[in-house]
């Protein structure tokens, strides 16, 4: 016998194990690559590039972002557009900082977008802001909360609309101080291992240092972690008084579900929570006090009207990213009307002059001229007791706005001494 024929070698194309592994690995890795939009708008439209994560650990938030900004665009266009021109907002998945930068570049150079908006990831926002600055076009970062975007990495072309980490820490911190949960207490922190988490940890640590609290544990958590059990064991081993969470996106939901599963006795506080993460946790899993930029139970006429319109349009309650994207496009549209221009330079000057905007809260908001962040009220909100929630969306009780009515809005923001931004 000259040739030994075994298995199915004779009926299969010869492919080495190595090739099979390479292709397999490559396909798994390439799952994240999206495709650019190829639809062109009518030339008279005001074209705005919108980047936001629609996949990955922030993907669930990005979906809300798209709903919010598109609803604002629809309403503005239905009311006659801006300066008689229609708004054309194209939303694309930003995926990761690299892809976000590439897409931003294409949007500004080839697609001739007037300016860019969006993003939730602080890392991707940083990448986009550098592209925007190079092209001298405005980038309005809507969801990112990292202090460094408004501080060390601030630039003249970037504006930030969400509350920064320092404000979130202050909003919850005040509630914790009131409840005697800080002074002399030991904290174990879990922190998302990217620019946002590191930044939030820094803000948390300076809050602890200022209020006589110590750390019994301090762990970084990769953004794609789904199983927290080794971290839960470490928490138990360090025996903290309070567990402090600086997590992001799906991490928050995964953690709270597994924390409830393991039934650890230590109270938790979190310095970052989005309503979508809370909703995803399911009843009975979430506990503690958290900060928020906006919640759908906010009792102002404009906010209540928005919630009603959103429900009518999409059949569900708006999440805080839907809200921020909605108000951000509205305020940009207002600025374009007021300046009669879509030019980035003119818009920047207008914002820097301290133009005020109604963002459906008790007080009007404005951009600080020297660090380009939107100064606004924030809120603590706490989880309702089991049984008192009307339905799965009715999880939280919104606290009163901070700072209090007698204090200036900037009281909860970093001062110019604390914030190293130079534009």
């Amino acid at each position, binding site marked *: 016998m000259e040739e030994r024929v075994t298995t199915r070698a004779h009926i299969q194309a010869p*492919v080495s194990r190595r090739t*099979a592994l390479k292709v397999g690995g490559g396909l*798994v890795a390439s799952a994240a690559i999206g495709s650019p939009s190829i639809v062109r708008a009518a030339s008279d439209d005001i074209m705005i590039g919108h980047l936001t994560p629609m996949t990955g650990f922030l993907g669930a938030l990005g979906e809300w972002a798209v709903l919010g900004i598109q609803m604002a665009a629809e309403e503005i266009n239905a009311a006659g557009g801006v300066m008689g021109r229609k708004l054309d907002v194209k939303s694309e998945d930003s995926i990761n900082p690299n892809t976000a930068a590439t897409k931003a570049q294409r949007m500004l150079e080839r697609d001739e977008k007037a300016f860019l908006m969006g993003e939730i990831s602080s890392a991707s926002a940083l990448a986009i802001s550098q592209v925007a600055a190079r092209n001298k076009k405005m980038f309005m970062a809507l969801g990112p909360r990292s202090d460094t975007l408004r501080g060390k990495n601030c630039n003249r072309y970037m504006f930030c609309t969400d509350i920064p980490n320092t404000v979130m820490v202050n909003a919850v911190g005040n509630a914790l101080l009131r409840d005697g949960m800080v002074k002399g207490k030991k904290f174990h922190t879990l922190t998302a291992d990217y620019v946002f988490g590191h930044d939030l940890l820094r803000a948390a640590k300076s809050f602890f240092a200022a209020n006589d609290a110590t750390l019994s544990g301090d762990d970084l958590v*990769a953004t794609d972690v*789904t199983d927290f059990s080794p971290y839960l064991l470490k928490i138990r081993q360090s025996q903290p008084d309070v567990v402090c969470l600086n997590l992001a996106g799906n991490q928050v*939901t995964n953690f709270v579900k597994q924390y409830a599963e393991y039934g650890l006795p230590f109270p938790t506080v979190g310095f970052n929570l989005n309503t979508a993460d809370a909703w*995803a946790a*399911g009843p009975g899993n979430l506990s503690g006090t958290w900060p928020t930029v906006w919640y759908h139970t906010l009792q102002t006429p404009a906010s209540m009207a928005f919630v009603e319109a959103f429900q009518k349009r999409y059949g569900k309650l708006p999440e805080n990213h839907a809200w921020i994207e909605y108000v951000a496009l509205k305020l940009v549209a207002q600025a374009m009307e007021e300046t009669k221009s879509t030019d980035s330079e003119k818009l920047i000057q207008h914002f820097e002059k301290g133009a005020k905007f109604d963002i459906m809260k008790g007080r009007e908001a404005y951009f600080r001229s020297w660090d380009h962040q939107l100064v606004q009220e924030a809120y603590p909100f706490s989880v309702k007791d089991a049984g008192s929630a009307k339905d799965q969306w009715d999880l939280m009780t919104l606290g009163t706005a901070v700072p209090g009515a007698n204090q200036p809005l900037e009281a909860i923001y970093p001062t110019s001494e604390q914030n190293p931004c130079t534009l």
Partner: protein
Amino acid sequence: MQLVFLLEQLVNGLVLGGYYLLIALGLSLIFSVGGVVNLAHGAFYALGAYVSVEIAKYVGFAPAVAISPVLVGLLGILFERFILKRFYTADPILGLLVTFGLAMVGEETIRIIWGAAPQPASMPALLKGPVIVGDFLFSKYRLLLLAVVAVVLVGIWYLLQKTSFGRVVRAGIQDPDMVAALGIRLQPYMTTIVVLGVGMAALGGALFAPIAVVHPAMGAEIITVAFVVVVIGGLGSFWGVVAAALLVGVVRGITIHFVPAAGEASMYVLMFLILMFRPRGLLGERMEKFE
């Protein structure tokens, strides 16, 4: 004290490894019989989670966990009959491409039906909480999960090693032509194995739904781990996959104990090291078609 902490992480890693096993073993089984690396395995896992969350609204948690794998397993029949079957004898790259495409179709289908926002899912309060044995803390739910995995594992092992069904399957893995020459049609055996594999993935999804985020891309998260486990264990090897799953769980736990930030990277480093010394994985057999 440090040693006790480490031991606790080790035991916890074994528990987690048991869970990885549920997903990876199905992937490995389907590969063994059909020669196709099923990249759509994660989609069945996600579907298992979604279907169980949906059914649990009507019949409660435990029945939902039992019914969901059966329903998704039935879908496995269609998957095998209409798609997978055509790729057993084709270039393996075609099999990878078609299952990869199917994974995307699966994820988008979930997005269309249930929306992009995660689905809330909880377990009965009865199953929540810890079990403390000596110095060790376990999650009550995960111990239960481990028991389920053990039953499934023993069942699959028994089926493959001790029954006439298993003998035909094992012969088919070794030499399908000889089995055909003996007058045995392999097709129904293939279908059964795929249904089992897919059902195990769905069971994994249903069991993990109460403790992890149920979202459309959850399949893509797990398929990477499962793929790593199968590669470390050796493509197609039953005990290799068992050893690899436990090893990955333990290495991850120990790494997180010392360098928390490197927890997810540890399994890839492990894969790298093992493939350096054993290119076929821990217990991978020499397979003619891949040489």
